[in-house]
């Protein structure tokens, strides 16, 4: 850690990991409800568990991005953070808002929560991923604006690197597109059309800028490759992201009452969206192969390479699988979607967050470069357990999704939804088992922060 004010990142990272644990526990609850329909009913209905699972995911990823920004921006700008106290204050506001929202989900019925938070004044609740009460959404806007102000001022007074500018651009886009969550017309088609300006333009647009900036930062650190080379790559990758991904939004405009021409625009452009993910994989491996130093933080490098591979698999390959409209006609809104959603979110955004945490946390905790061997080995175990089990979760859901699409939508005698779900329950059991292995991986991950801290670290090779 070169600048004292970077230390605020630690708070964000710790909270992110805690919410990650909560996310997975609720994922396991839902996984069980899939096969034992009355599990925890009516205390925690499925929709409530789903809200906690997905919203905890979004919030902890935002926390990790913010922590990354507070860590990375001062180091790149070569100056202290503009207002460290503001970053600390913002953290507590964010944490309390997130905690209160989750408590609201679990302790009140959703309609009571809507009443309590006066949803009728500006109705924004009750849409997938955007279930948060309007006041929480406003809180998120304030928190992100405070971050933008803080890192914007830091960049202004310091060195201006491409990585910093791209990160700032990505976070600004995140704030701008989030504003569409406040637009909720009664007209369902228009509601859905602009809902995707938050969801798709986040994960297949501006978030990829954030991902790229974080990946480039860590790669410069662990490989020592020339910044010019890495930043040139970064620009090419994110250029391809937006060139394909903006019109690629059309892969969500196939069947929601939107005009036919979207079948073409959406299929063609989104079919090219895997290209930047592939380039990212090539880029990461190239840089590691050309490395000019052996950084002692081996596990951070492992996470970085893992991100590049798994993002390509989850977003690129599993996205392509169902992105052409003739295929999507049958798979839309099935377990195929869930399979892709899991591997893409894990491979791209969970893994890049863990990459950044893995690189920065040892430094934030006062070490020179890396954790001791013991702790790194444990973290590597957790990497493999979580990643391999996520591959299996994806494969099982894909199996379920293929059968579901066939039995419910393609076969001669289409069966009702509930009958089909019964038929494919074996896959859901297998998914739950894979989920338990994921949890073991996560427990080891958390444990890796507590082992071997008294041992000397591996030699610094810089």
């Amino acid at each position, binding site marked *: 850690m070169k600048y004292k004010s970077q230390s605020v990142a630690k708070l964000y990272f710790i909270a992110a990991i805690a919410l990650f644990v909560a996310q997975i526990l609720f994922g396991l609850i839902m996984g069980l409800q899939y096969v034992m*329909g009355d599990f925890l009913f*009516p205390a925690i209905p*499925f*929709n409530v568990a789903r809200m906690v699972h997905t919203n905890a995911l979004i919030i902890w990823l935002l926390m990790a991005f913010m922590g990354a920004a507070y860590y990375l921006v001062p180091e790149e700008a070569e100056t202290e953070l503009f207002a460290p106290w503001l970053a600390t204050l913002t953290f507590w506001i964010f944490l309390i808002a997130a905690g209160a929202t989750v408590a609201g989900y679990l302790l009140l019925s*959703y309609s009571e929560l809507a009443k309590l938070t006066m*949803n009728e004044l500006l109705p924004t*609740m009750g849409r997938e991923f955007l279930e948060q009460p309007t006041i929480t959404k406003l809180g998120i806007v304030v928190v992100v604006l405070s971050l933008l102000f803080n890192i914007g001022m830091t960049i202004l007074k310091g060195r201006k690197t491409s990585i910093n500018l791209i990160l700032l651009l990505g976070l600004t886009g995140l704030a701008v597109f989030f504003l569409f969550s406040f637009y909720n017309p009664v007209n369902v088609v228009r509601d859905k059309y602009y809902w995707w300006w938050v969801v798709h333009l986040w994960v297949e647009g501006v978030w990829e800028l954030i991902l790229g900036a974080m990946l480039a930062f860590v790669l410069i650190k662990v490989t020592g490759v020339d910044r010019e080379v890495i930043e040139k790559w970064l620009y090419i990758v994110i*250029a391809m992201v937006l060139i394909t991904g903006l019109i690629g939004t059309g892969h969500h405009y196939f069947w*929601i*009452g939107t005009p036919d021409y979207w079948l073409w625009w959406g299929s063609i452009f989104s079919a090219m969206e895997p290209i930047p993910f592939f380039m990212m994989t090539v880029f990461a491996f190239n840089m590691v192969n050309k490395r000019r130093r052996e950084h002692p933080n081996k596990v951070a490098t492992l996470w970085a390479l893992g991100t590049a591979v798994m993002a390509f698999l989850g977003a690129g390959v599993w996205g392509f699988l169902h992105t052409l409209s003739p295929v999507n006609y049958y798979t839309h809104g099935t377990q195929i979607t869930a399979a892709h959603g899991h591997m893409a979110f894990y491979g791209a955004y969970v893994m890049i967050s863990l990459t950044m945490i893995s690189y920065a946390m040892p430094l934030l905790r006062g070490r020179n470069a890396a954790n001791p061997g013991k702790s790194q080995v444990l973290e590597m175990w957790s990497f493999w357990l979580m990643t391999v089990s996520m591959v299996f979760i994806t494969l099982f859901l894909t199996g379920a999704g293929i059968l579901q699409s066939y039995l419910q939508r393609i076969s001669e005698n289409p069966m009702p939804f509930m009958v089909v779900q019964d038929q494919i329950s074996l896959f859901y059991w297998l998914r739950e088992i894979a989920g338990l292995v994921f949890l073991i991986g996560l427990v080891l991950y958390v444990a890796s922060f507590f082992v071997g801290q008294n041992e000397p670290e591996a030699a610094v090779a810089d």
Partner: protein
Amino acid sequence: MAQAFTKAMARNIFYGGSAFFFLLLLALTFQTEADFPNLDNRAALEGPMGAKITKGKQLWEENNCIGCHTLLGEGGYFAPELGNVYTRFGNSTDAIKGFIASRPENGIPGRRSMPQFHFSDEELTALAEFLKYVSEIKTARNWPPNIQG
């Protein structure tokens, strides 16, 4: 990559490309908005049931139905697609109302369960009219592929 291809060139492609394709997205959005009136069943919203449908959408949202169900393929994958439930239930709003009203308080043992929401008759009508309105949206290729959703 050849030496001649510099970082500045990559940066220009990024800014130029993003700006161009963002404008294209805006243009397509304007065209789409112009085509919406033929597809999105807005006549229902402006008709005599308009106020009911509005109320129905509010109830839909404030009870988080989307957390279990898909609507036109978007939402949770735990429970049946509801974009076409009106047709699946024989074009009957009464059947929809009856189904929602009759959910047992403590669920059905061993089966995926839907909560009992204690809606009034007026609220049930609003929800059913909302689902009827959605089923009359003109989706491309008449998605979903068949009645099972």
